[in-house]
């Protein structure tokens, strides 16, 4: 399929706080919505002036009809400005960008989210569910990792998509006490997961993704991981978002953000 990138001024339907500094932004972006696949992202110009100057990348969190949804954390200048935008205002958006997840119709799908890494996985779970409805034996397991209880999001969405949700918190305030990668290890002790019937999809901080690479290598499973890197253009022109892979530098915006775990170094 020929990839098309759209630039649109799109209307904010809503922008609501869902946690201490977590927000959901719903945008009416019919053309982008119709082209998006899970794992892809958009580049948002959060301010008309030069503060901040560059667009900010956000994963597509959910698509419903003509609307796309972004799930984001206000952690700096750009995201704080974004968090103050009101329904009815317009945003200049470019997307969909990048190569998303390859949706494989395996019997088991294990989704591993670290912190904000949950953002693209909801859209993925929803698409996997569409495959699942064709094959009733399919099972989606979601491992949601966060620092603490208040940082666990999207449980409801995953459950709605028919996923089996397991939680880990670093401080043990909810679910498994420890890191989500340790939860993954314990889940994988179950010998039903084989390379032929299981695909792991992960998004989160780089150290977590690297560790997942190690885990799947040691037990012979396959994983797709979504990376983040600082971006300027988002379309493969500036070579700014380089990430080291086994076959040299790859560009997160164009070759990724989703890579095979075995490609990471």
């Amino acid at each position: 399929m020929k990839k098309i990138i759209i630039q649109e001024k799109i209307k904010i339907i809503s922008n609501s706080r869902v946690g201490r500094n977590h927000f959901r932004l719903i945008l009416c972006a019919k053309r982008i919505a119709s082209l998006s696949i899970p794992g892809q992202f958009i580049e948002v110009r959060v301010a008309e002036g030069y503060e901040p100057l560059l667009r900010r990348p956000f994963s597509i969190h959910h698509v419903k009809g003509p609307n796309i949804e972004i799930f984001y954390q206000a952690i700096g200048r750009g995201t704080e400005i974004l968090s103050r935008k009101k329904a009815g205002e317009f945003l200049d958006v470019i997307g969909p960008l990048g190569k998303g997840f390859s949706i494989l119709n395996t019997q088991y799908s294990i989704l591993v989210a670290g912190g904000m890494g949950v953002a693209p996985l909801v859209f993925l779970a929803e698409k996997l569910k569409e495959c699942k409805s064709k094959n009733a034996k399919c099972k989606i397991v979601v491992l949601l990792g966060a620092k603490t209880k208040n940082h666990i999001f999207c449980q409801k969405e995953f459950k709605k998509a028919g996923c089996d949700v397991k939680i880990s918190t670093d401080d043990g305030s909810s679910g498994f006490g420890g890191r989500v990668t340790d939860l993954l290890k314990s889940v994988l002790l179950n010998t039903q997961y084989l390379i032929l019937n299981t695909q792991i999809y992960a998004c989160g901080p780089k150290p977590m993704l690297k560790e997942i690479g190690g885990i799947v290598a040691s037990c012979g499973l396959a994983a797709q991981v979504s990376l983040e890197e600082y971006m300027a253009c988002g379309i493969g022109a500036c070579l700014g978002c380089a990430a080291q892979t086994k076959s040299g530098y790859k560009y997160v915006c164009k070759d990724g953000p989703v890579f095979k775990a075995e490609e990471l170094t």
Partner: protein
Amino acid sequence: MNTEIFLGALRLKNPVLAASGTFGYGEEFKDFLKPKDIGAIVTKTITFSPRQGNLPPRITETAAGMLNSIGLENKGLDDFIKNKAPGFRKLKTPVIVSIAGDSPREYGELAKKLCAAGISAIELNLSCPNLKNSKLISQDPKTTYEVVKAVRKAAKAAIIAKLTPNVTDIREIAIAAEEAGADSVSLVNTFLGMGIDVNTRRPRLGNITGGLSGPAIKPIALRMVWETAGVVKIPVVGMGGIMTADEALEFIIAGASAVEIGTANFIEPKTSLNVVSGIKDYMRKNKIKDIKELIGSIRYK
């Protein structure tokens, strides 16, 4: 209305170019604009052999600007001639190939091979380290002269010598390029800068230092273009932080025959198109029939 300008033998239908390193090889922007509507595209700088580029992070944002340390990453000349150059005809606008080498000889060789492959315009990225001392090529009038001369001898192409602004007096460098036979000079490349993350106390760029571009550098770039235009007879191509047609017009009025759009492409991919139409609107409004009337038309009183 005439917006045509010449840089040596290179004819441009309008004076707005996409700057090296910010527009890929032309293809990347096809969903946003038709390359045929802008004056020319300057490619990402290519080198003789493939280059890996610098350690990430390669980009960080600063007040009204950005720092980059891409490190001339490219797949080398052979790959370029085989895989990129054949697509240029489809773009229907002149493609100027930016090159960098480590010696006058290497620049000459590159230019010669590109000409043989049908390339007719070359921008010399002279912001590369000079192997003989710790300076950049265009930080030294003598090396600048040698490189431009070597290319002049090796190739028939139109030559644009692109200068670094990290110098005490850019005029003497521009004059050296002119004397060596450059058809035009372009400026500015990025200003060397750095940033530190106070939480980790680590440099924000993998390479520690990088080049500053974007709106933050515009007043300095404009001053340097004005200074240069005052001392050379060849056309000057101005750039540095141009985001709007008015800013492009500032450079033209200061003496630039053409402008390049860099960082702005990342923020608004249609900037170069908007600048072309904004310049035309300005000309219409001010009853200017030929863009040449505007070049260097700065009024001091």
